[in-house]
């Protein structure tokens, strides 16, 4: 057993030992910064005790789930302790008759869905990473194409337990879908990137697994035809589960998934054919090939080099967004994978990394076209030139007050933001 430490002197050594405290290694590095120590608490209470010890001793803490999005955020200041939720990985209850499940934060979404599948249900979050955990997707509010139908994790979350920096474990929300008792702290930590408290478990409303599905992939070489088709589908009464766009250079694709009864899928595909009559190709995909199409759409970008930014826009602004990207693509190749109905997506900027910051600033310079340009993946050189979160908002003071209320010692997230 490793001897424990002068590190976190105010923390109970029993907690430190049971949390497998060890020194950080290069494998634990966050954006190039190697943490001093790593702990893997085995219970919510132990996690809370570690936070309290860190707060007393002024140690900076970064929370880690599957570690799939650790590079998101500003470059960290020195990190004293990474707290991993790896051992908080149980599905606590699956109340399938009530379409809800309570699950510990370190559980990978994929493992959760394997469990839920036994009763024909799932948590419809199709974030792009296999090892992404429940806590991680809530903290980043990350989502994929299914957002079109099911929303983002915050829309599915109905209750949480949080470990606070004062060592307490507190509850907000509950285990029933309809519940307005008390403040919804689950919403507050959604998108907080671990900067307010640690999520230790979460309760979600679930969805029945779809009986059947079909995906239509339609290609357009003419951007005008693409945007007219998107607008026609948006105004139609079709109800797809996913309605995506993929654009690289002059090739644009619309990807639409229908999940329903076979008869309803057929009827909707036939109607869609009428809306997409100007497409250069119209392909129906089902089965394993369909899964591949969506895997490519969500993951392709992450498997390719370059900076990745998240951006959003008013859905009807799509023509202006595409023009802006075409303009920028003159300088470096640009890829867009987007939720057409929602008005949000990821933009990948390739080429010379020194031009990335300029491209990101170019996007931010057009707030009438795109809003909320947040850098998700970028090299240190790029992050040094721009703030990954974008400019300050008019609620900074409010966020600051909330941060001080939850993390008065300022130990969480090592300056990575967003608060």
């Amino acid at each position: 057993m490793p001897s424990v430490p002068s590190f976190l002197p105010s923390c109970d050594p029993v907690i430190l030992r049971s949390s497998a405290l060890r020194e950080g290694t290069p494998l634990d590095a966050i954006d190039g910064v190697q943490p001093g120590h790593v702990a893997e608490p085995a219970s919510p209470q132990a996690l809370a005790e570690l936070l309290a010890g860190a707060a007393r001793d002024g140690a900076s803490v970064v929370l880690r789930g599957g570690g799939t999005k650790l590079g998101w955020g500003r470059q960290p200041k020195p990190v004293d302790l990474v707290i991993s939720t790896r051992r908080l990985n149980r599905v606590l209850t699956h109340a399938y008759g009530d379409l809800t499940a309570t699950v510990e934060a370190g559980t990978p979404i994929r493992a959760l869905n394997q469990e839920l599948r036994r009763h024909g249900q799932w948590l419809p979050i199709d974030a792009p990473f296999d090892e992404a955990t429940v806590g991680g997707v809530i903290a980043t509010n990350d989502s994929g194409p299914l957002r079109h139908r099911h929303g983002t994790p915050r829309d599915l979350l109905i209750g949480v337990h949080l470990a606070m920096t004062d060592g307490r474990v507190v509850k907000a929300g509950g285990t029933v879908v309809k519940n307005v008792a008390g403040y919804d702290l689950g919403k507050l930590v959604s998108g907080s990137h671990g900067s307010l408290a640690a999520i230790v478990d979460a309760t979600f409303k679930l969805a029945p697994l779809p009986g059947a599905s079909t995906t239509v992939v339609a290609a357009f070489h003419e951007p005008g035809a693409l945007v007219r088709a998107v607008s026609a589908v948006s105004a139609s009464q079709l109800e797809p589960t996913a309605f995506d766009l993929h654009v690289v250079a002059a090739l644009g694709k619309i990807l639409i998934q229908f999940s329903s009864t076979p008869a309803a899928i057929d009827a909707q595909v036939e109607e869609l054919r009428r809306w997409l009559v100007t497409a250069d190709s119209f392909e129906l995909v089902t089965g394993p090939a369909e899964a591949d199409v969506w895997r490519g759409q969500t993951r392709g970008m992450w498997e390719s080099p370059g900076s990745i930014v998240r951006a959003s826009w008013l859905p009807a602004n799509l023509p202006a967004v595409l023009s802006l990207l075409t303009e920028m693509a003159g300088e470096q190749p640009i890829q867009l994978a987007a939720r057409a109905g929602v008005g949000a997506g990821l933009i990948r900027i390739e080429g010379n990394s020194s031009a990335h910051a300029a491209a990101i600033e170019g996007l931010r310079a057009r707030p009438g076209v795109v809003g909320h340009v947040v850098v998700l993946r970028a090299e240190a050189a790029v992050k040094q030139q721009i703030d990954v979160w974008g400019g300050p908002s008019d609620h900074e003071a409010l966020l600051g007050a909330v941060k001080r209320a939850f993390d008065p010692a300022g130990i969480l997230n090592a300056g990575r933001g967003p608060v």
Partner: protein
Amino acid sequence: MDQRLLDELAGICGAEAVLHEPLQLLTYECDALPHLRSLPAAVVLPSSASQVQAVVRVCHRAGIPFVARGHGTGLSGGALPAKDGVVIALSRLNRILDVDIANRRVTVEPGVTNLEITKAVAPHGYYYAPDPSSQQVCSIGGNVAENSGGAHCLKYGFTVHHVLALEVVLPDGEVANIGSPVVDTPGPDLLGLFVGSEGTLGIATKIVVRILRKPESVQTLLAAFDSIDAGGEAVSAIIGAGIIPAAVEMMDSLAIQAAEAAVHPNFPPSDTILIVELDGPAAEVRSLFQIVEETCRRVGATKIEIAPDDQQRARIWRGRKAAFAAMGRVSPNYYVQDGVVPRTKLPEVLGKVRDLSIRSGLRIGNVFHAGDGNLHPLICYDERVPGESDRAVEVAGEILRYCVEAGGSITGEHGVGADKAEYMSQMFTAEDLDAMQRVRLAFDPRNLCNPRKIFPTPRLCGEVPGPYRAHPVETAGLAERF
């Protein structure tokens, strides 16, 4: 209240927009939970966001508590005035500022009613999804404060799922924009926190909501059953088949009788009726509706009616949505509660409620959103009978206890307000509540913004605990309950 402050408020909103005579104030002494009453020192009726901001600044500077009020339809005393405080009534902020069909967004002021949004976009084939039963009169600002639901939230979610951005006057009079018409505002979800915070974190002065395309097809079925259990079994089987209906509602015999007496929906006389509505693409609704119908027959429906057109559908919904108000036809007084249980616990909890009704000697009508386990027990009593009002309060508290014990909640959509603050400790520990209080203090360090709501505190002086009594406006025949 100090005359100089009244003058200052009049300087902001105009003298006619500041009420301070006791008779004028009476209208504002309660919301739709009239057993909790408290006279404010003044009521101001601002007509713009900047006036709201100026009024809040004055209150903040002078240390005067203030309470925002929409159209006063809340059922938990959320708009109960603070003693010696100011009520900021938002009924004059009632403009629809922007209808943007291409982006499926509507921008409104808080005093616009829920249904006005749908009316504004219906000609374009769109609607606003959350549909509380009071939607004809309740304000969207109030919906934001309470995170209102409605019959269709089983499939479409609550207010929090349909609001994109808020302009908010914070308790110190600063203005913040939270959320944004463009999605994915970085950082903690302050919008999600604010929606449902019951007016304790600030006052929304501008609201951007998302509208939805009307579904291609809607089908509504009404099934009668001999018992609540049989109706409940139908609901379980429908949801077990992987179907998420747009709405699943149940009413028991007392609620059915009341609805018949009030609005004559011509419901079949029975122990229980179940209303199931499916919407979506026509082919999907057709095939799933068949499963719903077969399921109802299989578990023993004694009668099934399928609404052949919009008019008949409206008839069914009229009967359901009038149920609360209709209780006045069968009982001199009634008290509505808003507990939630996991759906699978409905039969067990309703059994307990039935026993409680027998034990207490009070009739209890049940109207509930069966799809999500949200109960609205209507406890009948006669305030002229000594002790009966107190018994109704005890019965309501007992029902909420059953809900919490079954793993549910003390409120599904009406809010905690002043009415249920004392029950919060049944659901949350002192530490949970302390974490929430910290958020409140981050927004409102001086505790001026809708104080004494949500969190358990000793009862207010002069506050009479107890169930429903007619609002003066109702007694005068000027308004109906929803």
